[in-house]
C-alpha cells in the first residue's frame, strides 16, 4: 500500500513533520495556514449574503473577470512604468479593475437588454476568461513573466503567499467582519425582501454595491490562495453547508464562517503535509466534504433527518391503522355476544380482510407491533393485543371517531366520506386538539363509528 502511494508521488509525512505543521512551528507554513483560515472566515461570512441574495454566479463572473486585469497590469507595469512584474499590489489592482468591469457589464446587459441574469453572467464569465488567457499568452515571452507567476492566479499557489499577501488577507477579513456585523440587519432585509427594503428608503443599490465590493475584496485577496477558478466554491460552499444546520440567519452566518475557517485551515495543513497536493483544490475539497456531510446529516434540513421523520411517520400510521383495525374487529365480535368491547383474540383472516392489506404487509405490521409490546400472542390463526396495545387501540379509535364526528357536525362532510378525511388527520392530532374535540363534541367515552364498517357486517355499529 505504501508503495502504491509512492507511485502517485505522495509521501506520508513523519510525526515530526505533522507536529511541525499542526503547531505552526515553521513560519512560512504558519503564514499560509493562518492566511487561508482567516480567508475562510471572510469568505464564509460574505458568502452567506451572496448566496441568500441569489448572486452566487455573480461571484463566479467576477473572479473570472479578474484574469485579464492581471495580465494587463503586468504589461502596464513592466512596459510603461518600469516596475517589476512581481509587484503584487499592482497585479491585484488590475484584477480588481477588470473584475468590477465584468460585474458592471453583467448589470448593463441585464438592464438594457432582455437577456436574463444567468445568460449575462455566462457571457461575461467566459469572454473575460478567454480574454485573460489571450493576454497571458501574449506576455508569456516577456522578461520577468515566469518570476511573476501569473498563472498561479488561475489555480492558486498557496505556498507563494507572501507576508504582504497575508497582511492583505487579514485586513480584508477585518473589513468583511466589520461590515457583516454593522450591516447585518440591512443585508438581511436586502436579501429577504428587496422591494420592501426599497419602499422603506434603504439604498438597495448602495447596499448591493457594498456587498459586491466585499465579494470583490475576498475574491482578489483569495486569488493567490485558491485561484480564480476555485474561489467561488470557497465563497458559496460554507454558506450552503451551514444552511443545512439552521433556520436562523445569525446562526447560519456564524456557522458558515466557522466552516470556511476549518476548510481553509485543514486544506492548507493537508497541503503542507503532502506538498504535491495543491492547497486551493484541497481547501475546496474539504469544504465540499463538509457540505456533503451537512447535506445528509444537517440538523435543520439534512436529507437523513427528512428520511427519518418520514419513516417514523409511516411507521406510526401503519401502527395506528393496525390497532384501529383490531379494535374495530374486537368491537364487532363483542357486540355479537352483546358484550362491551374487550380485548378478545382476533382471527388473522378477519384482520387481513379488514383493510386492503396484503398478507405480507399485515405480518410486517404485526411484527412491528410485537416489537412495541402491543401484541400478546400470535399463533397460526389468532392475534391478541397486550394490555398496553388494547389501551392504545382504544385511544386511536376514539381519536379517529371524534374527528369523524367533528367533520360531520362542524364541517358538513357526508358520513360516507368522513373515514378517508379523518384518516389523513388523525395521525397528527395532538393531545391539545383531542381535548378541544372532546369539549366541542362533549364526548368522553369511545363513540360509535358514525359510518358503516364493512367487516363488522353482522350487527356492527351503524
Amino acid at each position: 500500500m505504501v508503495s502504491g502511494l509512492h507511485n502517485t508521488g505522495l509521501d506520508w509525512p513523519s510525526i515530526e513533520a505533522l507536529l511541525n505543521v499542526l503547531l505552526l512551528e515553521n513560519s512560512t507554513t504558519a503564514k499560509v495556514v493562518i492566511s487561508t483560515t482567516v480567508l475562510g472566515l471572510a469568505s464564509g461570512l460574505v458568502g452567506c449574503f451572496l448566496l441568500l441574495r441569489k448572486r452566487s454566479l455573480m461571484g463566479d463572473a467576477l473572479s473570472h473577470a479578474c484574469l485579464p486585469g492581471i495580465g494587463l497590469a503586468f504589461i502596464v507595469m513592466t512596459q510603461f512604468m518600469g516596475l517589476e512584474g512581481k509587484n503584487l499590489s499592482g497585479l491585484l489592482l488590475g484584477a480588481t479593475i477588470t473584475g468590477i468591469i465584468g460585474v458592471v457589464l453583467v448589470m448593463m446587459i441585464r438592464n438594457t437588454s432582455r437577456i436574463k441574469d444567468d445568460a449575462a453572467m455566462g457571457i461575461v464569465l467566459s469572454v473575460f476568461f478567454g480574454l485573460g488567457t489571450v493576454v497571458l499568452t501574449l506576455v508569456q515571452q516577456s522578461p520577468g513573466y515566469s518570476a511573476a507567476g501569473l498563472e498561479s492566479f488561475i489555480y492558486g499557489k498557496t505556498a507563494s503567499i507572501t507576508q504582504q499577501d497575508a497582511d492583505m488577507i487579514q485586513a480584508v477579513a477585518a473589513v468583511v467582519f466589520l461590515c457583516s456585523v454593522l450591516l447585518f440587519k440591512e443585508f438581511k432585509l436586502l436579501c429577504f425582501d428587496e422591494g420592501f427594503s426599497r419602499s422603506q428608503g434603504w439604498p438597495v443599490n448602495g447596499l448591493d454595491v457594498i456587498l459586491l465590493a466585499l465579494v470583490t475584496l475576498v475574491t482578489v485577496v483569495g486569488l493567490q490562495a485558491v485561484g480564480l477558478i476555485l474561489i467561488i466554491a470557497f465563497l458559496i460552499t460554507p454558506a450552503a453547508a451551514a444552511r443545512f444546520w439552521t433556520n436562523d440567519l445569525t446562526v447560519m452566518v456564524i456557522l458558515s464562517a466557522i466552516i470556511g475557517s476549518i476548510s481553509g485551515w485543514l486544506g492548507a495543513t493537508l497541503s503542507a503535509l503532502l506538498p504535491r497536493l495543491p492547497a486551493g483544490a484541497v481547501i475546496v475539497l474539504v469544504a465540499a466534504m463538509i457540505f456533503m456531510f451537512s447535506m445528509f446529516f444537517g440538523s435543520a434540513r439534512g436529507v437523513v433527518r427528512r428520511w427519518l421523520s418520514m419513516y417514523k411517520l409511516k411507521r406510526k400510521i401503519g401502527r395506528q391503522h393496525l390497532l384501529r383495525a383490531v379494535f374495530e374487529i374486537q368491537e364487532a365480535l363483542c357486540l355479537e355476544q352483546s358484550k362491551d368491547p374487550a380485548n378478545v383474540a382476533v382471527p388473522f383472516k378477519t384482520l387481513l380482510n379488514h383493510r386492503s392489506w396484503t398478507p405480507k404487509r399485515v405480518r410486517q405490521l404485526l411484527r412491528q407491533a410485537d416489537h412495541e409490546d402491543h401484541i400478546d400472542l400470535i399463533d397460526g390463526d389468532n392475534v391478541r393485543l397486550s394490555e398496553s396495545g388494547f389501551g392504545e387501540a382504544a385511544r386511536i379509535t376514539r381519536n379517529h371517531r371524534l374527528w369523524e364526528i367533528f367533520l360531520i357536525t362542524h364541517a358538513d362532510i357526508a358520513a360516507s366520506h368522513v373515514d378517508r378525511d379523518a384518516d389523513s388527520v388523525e395521525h397528527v392530532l395532538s393531545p391539545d386538539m383531542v381535548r378541544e374535540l372532546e369539549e366541542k363534541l362533549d364526548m368522553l367515552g369511545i363513540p360509535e363509528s358514525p359510518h358503516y364498517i364493512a367487516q363488522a357486517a353482522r350487527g356492527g355499529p351503524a
Partner: protein
Amino acid sequence: MPDLAYHNKPSATPPLREDDHSPRAPLSIHDLTVAYHRKPVLWDIDLDIPEGKLVGIIGPNGAGKSTLIKACLDLVPKASGLVQVYGQPYKRQRSVVGYVPQRESVDWDFPVSALDVVTMGLYRDIGWFKVVRRKHKDIARAALDRVGISHLAERQISQLSGGQQQRVFLARALAQDASLYFMDEPFAAVDAATERAIVTLLKDLQSQGKTTLVVHHDLATVTQYFDYVILLNMRVVAAGPTEEVFTAENLHRTYGGKLTLLAEAGHALSQIKRG
C-alpha cells in the same frame, strides 16, 4: 439617507408646511404614466383618495394594479406625473406609509422566523447599524398578536401555511404603525379563516381612521369589503364610492370583452341587488 435619519414619526396627519398648498388627501396622483420597456402600463392616472377609506383596486390581469402601488412607493420609475402622500412626496412620508408586497415576491425559504420578518417593518425606526432591541421585538409580537399568530412567532417562515405567511406580511406593515397602507393582493390564495381575519383587520384599520388601498381580484366580494373602488385598466375607468362606481356598465368598460369575467361581474351585481 436624510429621510432615514429622523426617528420621530410625524403624527397621522403631519402638519402642513406654510408653503404647502396641495390638498391634504392621504394619496393624490396627478397625470401618472408608467412604462416598462417603453410600453406604457399606466396612462394619465388622476386620483384623489379621501381619508379613512377602505379602497379596492379592481381590474383585469395586466391592468397595472400592482404597478400603480409600486409607482406610488417609488418602486418603479414614473415616465411622468406626481404622487403625493398627505401633500408631500412619498420619500418624505415613508414613516406614515405601510406596504404589504405580494406574497410570492419573496423566497419563503429564507432562514428567518416570523418575528424576524415582522421586525423588519421597524428597521427604519431602528436606524443604520443599530441592533434590534427587546422593545422592537415586543412591538413585533404585538403586531403578530393582532393578526392572530403570535404563537407562531419563533417558527421559521417556510414552516408556515400560505395564509399564515400572508398574516406575517400584514403584521410587518402593522408594526410600522402607518396611516396609509398599500396591500398587493393580500387575499391571493389564502384560506377562508385568513380571509376573514384580514377583512376584520382592514375594517379595524378603517375604524381607526386609516386609509388602505388593496389590490383585489374577487369581484364577488368587492361590495362586501370596500367602500371605495378604483376600476383600473391601464387608465382609471372609474373611481369613487363603491355604490356609485361599481356598476355593470363600468365593469364592462373595465373588463372589456372578457366574457368569463363579465359573468363574474354579473354574479357580483346580482349579489348587490340581493344584499
